[in-house]
C-alpha cells in the first residue's frame, strides 16, 4: 500500500524532516505513526499522498511512485486515499454535508448515492444533527469529525489520518477508533499519526512506527531489529510482525508495486 524506500525529505531548513526512512505498509494493515512534535509524522503522510516529493529515495503509494507520477496525475492516487488533515482543511462556507458530498462528487460517484452516503458517514461520526451547519460554525471536534467523514466517504483503499482524535474527547475518540477498525477490517489500510500513547496501548494489535527527529527509531514489525538497520531491504519491511485484528486475510501478502496508469 505504502512503501518508503530510503526516503529523505529536506525542507529549506538544514536538518531534514525525514532522514533515510524505509518501511512498508501492507494492504489492509493498520499502523500507528508516532513521535514527538516535529518528528516528521505529517511529513511522512504528505509524502505518501504525493503532496510533497522526497528529496532522496522513493515513495510508493497505491501503485503510484513519487519518481514516476507527474503532478497532473496525482489526482488518480488521491481518489484511492482518504486523508484526515491535521488542520482539517474543510471547504469554508459550506455545510458539513456539502463538504462530505463534495469529496464524493470529485471522484464521480453516482449522483443518487452521494447524499445518502454522505449522510450515513456523518451519522457514523456522530454529526447527523449538524449535517446542515456551515463548517466554520462547528466546534473544533465537530470539524475534525467532518474531516474524518469526508476521508472515509470515498471508501478509500488507504486512510492517512493525521492526529484525527486531537480535538476529540474520550468518548468521541473511542467511536472514531472503532469506526477505523471496522473499516480496516473490510480491507482499508490505515496509517494514523498520533501522539496519544494511551490510545496506542489500547490497540496493541496495530503496528507502530515511531519517528524521532526524522528517523524511524521503532517499528513494531521488527521488534528485534535495531532501529538503525530498519528498511535495509524490502524483505524485512515487507514482513509484518503484528497484523491488525479482524478478518483481514490479505494483510500478510506483500503488495506488488503497480505501475501508474496514464
Amino acid at each position: 500500500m505504502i512503501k518508503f524506500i530510503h526516503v529523505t525529505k529536506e525542507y529549506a531548513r538544514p536538518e531534514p524532516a525525514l532522514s533515510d526512512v524505509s518501511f512498508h505498509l501492507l494492504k489492509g494493515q493498520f499502523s500507528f505513526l508516532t513521535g514527538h512534535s516535529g518528528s516528521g509524522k505529517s511529513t511522512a503522510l504528505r509524502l505518501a499522498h504525493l503532496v510533497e516529493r522526497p528529496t532522496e529515495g522513493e515513495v510508493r503509494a497505491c501503485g503510484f511512485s513519487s519518481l514516476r507520477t507527474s503532478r497532473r496525475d496525482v489526482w488518480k492516487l488521491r481518489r484511492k486515499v482518504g486523508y484526515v488533515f491535521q488542520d482539517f482543511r474543510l471547504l469554508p462556507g459550506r455545510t458539513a454535508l456539502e463538504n462530505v458530498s463534495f469529496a464524493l462528487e470529485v471522484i464521480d460517484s453516482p449522483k443518487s448515492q452521494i447524499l445518502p452516503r454522505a449522510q450515513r458517514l456523518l451519522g457514523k461520526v456522530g454529526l447527523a444533527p449538524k449535517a446542515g451547519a456551515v463548517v466554520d460554525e462547528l466546534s473544533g471536534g465537530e470539524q475534525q469529525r467532518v474531516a474524518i467523514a469526508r476521508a472515509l466517504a470515498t471508501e478509500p483503499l488507504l486512510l492517512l489520518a493525521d492526529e484525527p482524535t486531537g480535538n476529540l474527547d474520550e468518548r468521541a475518540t473511542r467511536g472514531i477508533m472503532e469506526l477505523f477498525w471496522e473499516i480496516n477490517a473490510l480491507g482499508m489500510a490505515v496509517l494514523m499519526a498520533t501522539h496519544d500513547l494511551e490510545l496506542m496501548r489500547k490497540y496493541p494489535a496495530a503496528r507502530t512506527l515511531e519517528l524521532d527527529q526524522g528517523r524511524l527509531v521503532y517499528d513494531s514489525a521488527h521488534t528485534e531489529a535495531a532501529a538503525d538497520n530498519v528498511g535495509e531491504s524490502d524483505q524485512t519491511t515487507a514482513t509484518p510482525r503484528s497484523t491488525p485484528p479482524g478478518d483481514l486475510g490479505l494483510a500478510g501478502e506483500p503488495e506488488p508495486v503497480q505501475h501508474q496508469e496514464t
Partner: protein
Amino acid sequence: MFYTIRETLIAFKRAPLLTGLSAAMVGLALFVVGLFGLATYNVRLYLETLEERVEVVAYLRDDATTADIAIMEAALTMLPEVLGVDFVTKAEALERAYRDLPEFNEILTDLQVNPLPASLDIQLRPGSRNPITAERVAQQAALHAIVEEVQYGEEWVEKLFTLRRMGAVTTTVLGTAFAVVAALIIGTAVRIAIFARREEIKIMQLVGARDSFIHRPFLLEGAITGALGGALAVALTYTTFWSVFNYLFTISWIPWEWAGIGVSSGIVFGVIASGYAVRKHLREV
C-alpha cells in the same frame, strides 16, 4: 454541468462581496472603453457632416446653352463617385458672393455686369470624399467644352482627409490602449479574486479533483463576472449618453452591436483570465 453551475452559485453566495467587486471592476474597465466608443462614434458622425461639404465646382462659360448644361449634368450624375449635381446660375452666384464675402460687397455693387460665372456643384458620395477621387471627378468635368475652370478646394479636401486619417489613427491607438487596459484590469480583478480563494483550490486538489473539474466552476464564474461587468458597462455608458443628451448637447448612441461586442469581450476576458489564474494556482500545489 449541474455541478459546475451549483459550485459557481455557491461561490457567489459565499463571497458576494468578492464577486460583486470583481464584476464592478470589470464593468468600470469596460465603461472606459464604452465612454471612449461613445465619444469616438460622435466625433466620427461630426466629421461625416463636415465631409458632406466636399464638392467639386465646375465654372461654366457665359455662352453655355441650357441644353449643353443639361447634357453635362446628366453625364456627371452617372459617374459612380458622384452623389448629385446642382446647377448654380450667375444670379445665384452673385447672391452667394454678397452673402459669403461681405468685404467685396462694394466692388460687386460698383460693377455694371455680373462678373461671376454660373457653375455646376458636384457632391461626392461618402466613400469618395478624398483628394484622389475629387481630382478624378474634376478632370472628368473639365473635359466638357462649356467648362471654364474646375475647382474642388484641394487644400480643404487635403486637410479634411488628413484630419480623418489622424482621427482614425488616434481612435485606433487610444481604443486599442483602452481595450488592452480593460482586459488587463479584468484579468487582474479575476486573479485577485481567485487568489483570495487559493486555499479552496488546494483543498479540491487534495481530495482528488481533476484539474478540469476544478477549472470549470471558475471559468463559469469568470464568464458570469464578465457578463455582469459588461452589462454594467453598457448601463453606465447609456446613463452617460442619456445625461449628456438631455443636459448638455445632442449626441448619438453607439450602435447596439458595439455594446454587444463589449459585453462579449467582457465574457471572453473573464473566462480567459479565470482560466489563467486557476491554472497558475493549480500548478503551485
